[in-house]
Every structure is written in C-alpha cells, then in structure tokens.
C-alpha cells in the first residue's frame, strides 16, 4: 500500500481540498455566529467592524492634522502653503499633501487634501471637514466654494458622524455617544478630538465590503441553505486530513520493488537551498495574500488570487515537508545540509593538508591559523567570554603541543633503542598522525628489518658453528688414527735417519692439525656468541700471576724475561674466569711463540678511574709487515706462511672472548713492538 503512486497522488491532491473545506467550514461557523445573514452594504454599515474602521479613519486624520499644525507653526503663521510648495507631512500612519485654497465664505485658511495615503480602506469613502478651534484652520477633502454650507450638509446628509463642543452627533449606532463610553478606553481616541470640530459622512451605496468581509460573505453564501453542513464537515475533514498526512509521512520515499528509500531530484539538492527557496516562496505568497485583503484590488478576482496563493503555498509546503521526511528516512538529512558538506570538506581538506609529508606547509597553516584564531578571539575581548575563550584556546594549543611532543619523544625513544642495538621496537602507528605517522611507519620497517637481519645473521652464525663442530668430529676420528699410528711409528726402531725425519714431520703436522681444528671450533663458537658465560668477580692480578706460573717454563725456554708492573692492591673485574684465562693464555701463548728470543716482555696492570688497563708489550721475532686489523682477522697471522705453530686464531679468539665479557681488546703494532691492550670496567 505504501508503494502505490496513485494513492499518494490522490492524497496530495485531496489534502488541499480537505484543508480548504475545513477552513471554509470554520469561517462559516464563526461568521454565522457573529453576523448572521448579510444582504448588502446597508447592513454592513450596521456592523461594529464598520464603526470601528470609520472612527479609526477619523482619528488618523486628526492625528495627521495635529502634526501638520506643528509644521505650519514652524514655517510661520502668516505664510501660506501654496499648491506648489505643498509639503509632505508625515504622521505615524499616513501621508498627506495639503494645498491651501481660498474661500471667501470662510474667514480662516482652508487646507485641501490633495493626496492621501491613509492605509485604512474606508478613508477614501469618508467626506470630512475638520476645524482647528484654536486658529480656525480648516482641513477637508471636499472641494467647495462654500464650506459653511458643506458643514451643514455633512451634519444632516446620509450616514454621518459629527463632533462639536465635546458631543457626538451621529446616526451610526456602533459609535454613537452611548457606545463611545465603551470604546474610548480601548482606542484611547475620543480625547484626540478635543479642540477640534469634526464633520463627516459616508454614502453607504458607494461603500463595498472589506475584503475579509467579502470573503466571509462568499463563504456564507456557499453554505446558504446548508447551515448544518460544517458541523459534519469539520470533524470529517479533520480525520481525513490526519489520516492522509500520516499515510504520506509513512509512505513517502517507498517505491515499487525497491527496498531502499527512493530520493528524487529535489531530495538531492542542498537542504538549505530548498528550505530557503520554499520559505521565500511561501513568505511571498502569504504576504501577497495578506496584502490583498487590505488592498483595493477588485473583489471579483480576490477569491481567485487567494486560491492561487493558497495552492502555491500548499505545494511548496508539501514539497518541503515530504523532502524533509524522505531525507530523514534515508538517513541523509544531516548529510544533505550544505553546511555539513562544507564542514566535512574543510575537515577533510585540513586533514589532507596536515597528512602531507610536507610538514613545512602544515606548520605554516597551523601557526598562522593559531595567530588568526587568537586575533579573532582577541577582537571579541570586549565581551567577558572572549577572554576566557582566548585563554582556553591558548591552553588547548599548549596541551596539543605537549601531546605532540610526547609523541615525538616516543619516536625518539624508539630510535634510541634501535641505535643502542635493540631493534625490538614497535610503534603504534594508529596513535600518531601526519608526519609522525609516516616516521613511525619507517621506524617500524627499519626495526623490523634490523630484527630480521640480526636474527638471520645469528641463525647463519649458529648454523656455521654447528657445521664446523660437526665437521670437526668427522675430521677428528681419522686424525686420531693418524696421530696414534705416527706415534707407534715413532716408537719403532728405524735405523734410517731420513725416515725418522719424515715421521717427525708427520708428527708435528698432525699435532698442528689437531690444534687447528680445536681452535677453529672455538673461534666459531666465540665469534657467534655461542658461549655460556658465568660472570663473577675476579682478581685480575691473581689471574696474571697464575698464568705466569703456567707459562714460566715456556718463556724460559725462549729466554724471555718478564717485566711485570702490577699494583699492590687486588684488581677486581667482572668476568667468566675460565674464558678470561683463555684470553690471557692466548696472549701469553702468542708471546711465547712469536717474541724475539732473549728479549724482554713487559706486562703492566693499572687501575684507572673507571677502568682496568692491562698491557702486554714484546718485540716480534719477525718483521710485522701487516696491520693490526689484518692480524686480528681469522686465519691471518703476523707472517702469512712462515710459521708452523698455532692456528692464527688465538688473538681473534681472545678478542671475541674479551668483548663477550664486556671488555675491550686492542692490538697495536709499532715497528717490531707488538702491543696488546685490554681494558675492562672496574668492579668495586
């Protein structure tokens, strides 16, 4: 049912008819109770409405004359106001032009009303003569050569109303002497006539109904003979109206075969525009209709004008109400406001601008926006609220700046974490906006990349270590046989010096191979950090003495003299004692292998401010044609090939182990001087 176009159309058409029926029924009820039947103008003259209008017109005239009199006084009493110099005098309600004319039968100046823009309808039908008793000036709209006679005519002819010496003489019942008592208070008017004589009449046959009365009369005539009809029509039309309106509200927007609310082209226009246009049209039509009641347009077309206005107004209102309802139903109401669209556009545009990577533009907009808003608010300072709003705005801006700074701090912290080698950071990008959001994204990506790379490299180092360890197992088994059988060969009595020499070489090389494999495994483990450390407080001085004890015979064999410079106090550091020994052992082993025989070896242990400093110095037996860095690299030895002892991994292992335990291992080569410097954080 709600999809029926026909039904809706019928409703739209019926509603104005129903309203019309309802309104004329109600008008009819009110006029029949007020006036009963009216035949013509003669009856109209009898009505109170006519009386009131008549009196009102006279009051306007007197008020105007009072004003004019003031003006005349200012010009000068002896001067006359000629036709040419007729002045426009304004009163509260009307415009009048007077011209002074001469009448010999009257001793005082006579002012003839040339033009009158009085807004009461009846004024053009009233003939009047008003005499200012103070100076005898006469004001009139009757053209005559003998005004005293005209006064007499007015007193007697037709329907008249006269005021002389404070008494009313009239044949209009509604405003006679008797009724004046009642209306003076409400109009506060009869008093205005004091000091004036007023003579006036009206010819009822020239009079037409007032427009409203005319319409009432038309309505009355329509129901003539069916006076009871409105009693039924009012409730019937009311019920029908309500039903149809409710139906339309319910059904509008629904169309056959479509689930959603259907919007037509009007519904898509800006709501403000539609509302303004419709309101404007309705306003125009209404004021035109109202004006036409007061106006002098022929009453024959008045009804048509009225109906036309009514229909246009209705159509506009119907369109407006129905589009409003459809918009509401489709949940498009707020969105169809142009204001809303503009606000959205502004918001989106601001966001677009602030989201840009170009933070300079954003800063510019924000900064000048701040200044502008501050200035606008400052301009409203005169009102007390402006100050508060301005201060609130400043505080809000400050708060926003703090918040922004907080976010920057977060990003800074994340960057510091990455810088310090802890890339496990994750910034919440949703919390941030604009440039910061982009920064957070980049940081997250970088951190992710780092974490990945570190994991990858750790994994590959671990795999390498595992590989080396496993391979070393496989190498060690045949090596065991080699070493053992060489050893057995050595024990055989061979009376051949050459074979004995060969065997000695085999023995030496197989031992070297063994050492190489062991060092290789250790180096790969240490460099990949695949070592479990058991950190404790260690006395480095004790350790040095112990190590010296271990190497005493080896050093002695090479005739190396130790020059030790140790502090008297114990030197404490935090380390894993076994791995620390490996470090010192490797350095000693290196010295015992590569130091120049018969030279001195200097060992210095020193406690500095926060660090412990350990230094080994010795003279290399061979020329060190290699940099310290190269020397530290695995498998690179001071002399690339000449030596057969060791694996070349000792110093590299020592360095890795030192660093694993938080120390620093450095080699320095100065000519033949070979220097190892180890520093450690001091432990108290």
């Amino acid at each position, binding site marked *: 049912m709600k999809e029926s176009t026909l039904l809706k159309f019928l409703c739209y058409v019926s509603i104005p008819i129903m309203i019309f029926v309802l309104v004329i029924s109600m008008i009819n009820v009110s006029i029949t109770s007020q006036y009963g039947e009216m035949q013509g103008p003669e009856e109209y003259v009898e009505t109170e409405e006519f009386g009131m209008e008549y009196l009102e017109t006279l009051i306007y005239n007197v008020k105007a004359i009072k004003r004019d009199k003031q003006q005349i006084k200012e010009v000068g009493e002896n001067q006359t106001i000629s036709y040419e110099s007729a002045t426009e005098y304004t009163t509260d309600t009307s415009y009048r032009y007077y011209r002074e004319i001469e009448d010999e039968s009257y001793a005082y100046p006579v002012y003839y009303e040339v033009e009158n823009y009085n807004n009461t309808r009846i004024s053009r039908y009233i003939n009047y003569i008003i005499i200012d008793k103070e100076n005898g000036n006469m004001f009139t709209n009757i053209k005559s050569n003998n005004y005293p006679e005209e006064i007499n005519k007015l007193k007697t002819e037709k329907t008249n109303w006269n005021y002389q010496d404070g008494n009313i003489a009239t044949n209009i019942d509604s405003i006679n002497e008797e009724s004046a008592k009642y209306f003076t208070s409400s109009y506060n008017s009869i008093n205005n006539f004091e000091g004036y004589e007023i003579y006036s009449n009206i010819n009822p046959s020239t009079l037409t109904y007032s427009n409203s009365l005319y319409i009432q009369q038309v309505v009355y005539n329509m129901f003539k003979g069916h006076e009871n009809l409105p009693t039924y029509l009012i409730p019937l039309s009311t019920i029908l109206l309500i039903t149809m309106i409710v139906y339309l509200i319910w059904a509008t927007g629904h169309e056959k075969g479509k689930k959603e609310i259907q919007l037509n082209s009007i519904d898509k226009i800006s709501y403000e525009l539609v509302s303004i246009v419709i309101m404007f049209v309705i306003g125009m039509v209404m004021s035109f209709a109202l004006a036409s009641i007061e106006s002098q347009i022929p009453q024959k077309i008045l009804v048509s004008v009225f109906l036309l206005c009514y229909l246009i107004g209705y159509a506009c209102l119907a369109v407006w109400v129905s589009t409003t309802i459809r918009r509401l139903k489709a949940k498009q109401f707020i969105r169809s406001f142009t204001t809303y669209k503009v606000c959205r556009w502004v918001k989106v545009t601001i966001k677009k601008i602030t989201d840009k990577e170009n933070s300079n533009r954003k800063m510019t907009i924000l900064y000048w926006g701040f200044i502008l808003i501050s200035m606008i608010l400052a301009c409203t300072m005169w009102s007390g609220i402006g100050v508060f709003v301005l201060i609130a705005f400043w505080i809000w801006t400050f708060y926003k700046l703090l918040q922004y700074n907080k976010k920057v701090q977060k990003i800074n912290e994340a960057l510091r974490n990455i810088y310090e080698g802890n890339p496990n950071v994750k910034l919440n990008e949703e919390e941030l906006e604009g440039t910061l959001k982009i920064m957070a994204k980049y940081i997250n990506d970088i951190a992710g990349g780092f974490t990945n790379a570190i994991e990858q490299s750790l994994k590959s180092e671990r795999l390498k270590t595992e590989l080396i360890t496993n391979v070393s197992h496989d190498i060690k088994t045949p090596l*065991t*046989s080699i070493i053992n059988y060489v050893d057995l060969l050595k024990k055989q009595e061979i009376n051949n010096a050459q074979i004995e020499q060969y065997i000695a070489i085999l023995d030496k090389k197989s031992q070297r191979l*063994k050492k190489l494999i062991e060092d290789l495994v250790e180096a790969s483990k240490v460099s990949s950090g695949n070592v479990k450390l058991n950190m404790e407080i260690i006395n480095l001085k004790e350790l040095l003495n112990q190590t010296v004890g*271990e190497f*005493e015979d080896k050093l002695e064999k090479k005739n190396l003299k130790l020059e030790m410079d140790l502090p008297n106090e114990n030197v404490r550091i935090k380390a894993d*004692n076994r791995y620390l020994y490996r470090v010192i052992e490797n350095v000693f082993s290196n010295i015992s292998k590569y130091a120049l025989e018969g030279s001195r070896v200097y060992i210095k242990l020193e406690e500095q401010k926060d660090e412990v400093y350990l230094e080994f110095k010795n003279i290399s037996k061979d020329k060190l044609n290699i940099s310290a860095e190269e020397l530290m690299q695995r498998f690179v030895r001071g002399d690339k090939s000449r030596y057969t002892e060791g694996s070349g991994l000792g110093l590299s292992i020592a360095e890795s182990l030192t660093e694993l335990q938080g120390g620093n291992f450095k080699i320095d080569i100065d000519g033949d001087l070979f220097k190892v410097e180890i520093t450690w954080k001091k432990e108290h």
Partner: protein
Amino acid sequence: MYNILVVDDDKEIVNAIEIYLSQEGYHIIKAYDGEEALEKLKENEIHLIILDIMMPNKDGLETLQEIRKDKTIPVIMLSAKSEDYDKISGLNTGADDYVTKPFNPLELIARVKSNIRRYVDFSHVNYATENTKLQKEKVLKTGALEINDETKKVMVDGKEIKLTATEYNILKFLLKNKGKVYSIEQIYENVWNEESYGAENIIAVHIRHIREKIEINPKEPKYLKVIWGIGYKVEDIK
C-alpha cells in the same frame, strides 16, 4: 691380567689402542658397536671399558646406560665430541673418565691404569687402612690422592709421587683444607708464614709442577684445580 673392552666403530683406533694397552700387559677385547659391546660384556669378565660415543646400532651413551643398570666397572668415554656439554652428559650418565679424540696415548694409558687400580685394588685397600688405623690421622687424602705426613709419602692411585719439599708443603696445606679455595697470597702466608711480597708467580710455578706430577692431564686436573683469578684448591673427592 685384566680384560679391557675397547668399543669403537673405527677399527684402526681400536687396533691402535690394543697395541698401546697390550704393551702395558692388558688383554684387549674388541667391539665395533654398542650391541656387540654388550654381548662381549656378557661373555667375558671385563675390568674396564673404553667406549666411543658416536657408533652405529647403539651409541656410546645408550650402551653406557645399559651397562650401568647392573655393573660398576670403570668406563672411559672416548669421543671426538669435546664440548663441555658432551663431557658433562657422559660423566652424568655414569662414565668414570672422558678422553677426547685425538687422544694422547700416554694419557689414555695413565687413565686406564688409574681406573683399574682404583676399581680392582680398592676392594682390598679397605683392610690396609684398617691395619694402619694408628696412622690414620697422619694420612690426608682425597679420591685416590693421599699424603702420609709421617712418611712424607705422596700416593696417587697407589703409586708414589716424588715432590720437592716446597711442593709437598703446598699440597699438604691445600689437601688439609680440601674443597676450599686459597689465593696465592694466602697459600704463601700459610706455608711460609710470612708476607708474600713479590713472590706470587713462584707459587704459581710450584703449583703447576705439582699438577704435572700428580695429574694425568695437568691441563684438566682432577685433584689440584686452578680457579682462574681467584686461587687454587684441592678437590674434595670421596
């Protein structure tokens, strides 16, 4: 005549070990995997087992577990696996010793001897100590290391060791306070009863000498241990 079961999947290694140990007068029984070793163990009276870890059929550790279910005979693990982790797991499973490949034949022989002496002789040693109850207070010992302060004799695995007077005093002090760690300075002050000014590495040298005499492998000492950067101690072994 003691029977030693040598288990390794590498025949050459088994043969080499046979040569070395036969020269010392041991009888060698050979096996090339865990299963075979367990069979040989059932068939023969075995006094010591040298057991490889990485072997087909049944690996060394599994075999050791089987053996330890009902036998206390000494087992020396012989493996190319030299990680701390491997040694610890071997010893925890019940091995008496752990020798890594490639091994030093002399070390292996020494360990075999030490383990056999302890395993075989200790069953008789009890009487001996009963008889010398009077001297008991004078005897300091840990594991198979003992010092008789009366006779000034130092014995390891029942074998006499010759130490110098200084070495003897240092060892005696440490053995008397076995299980405790002493720094060089403390050892010096206790043994010499005077300040150790400048004499630190002399003590360290002495201790190395002691280790070289009493230990099978001075680099991996069993009795006199070096706690690097802290001091020395004699392990308290029952």
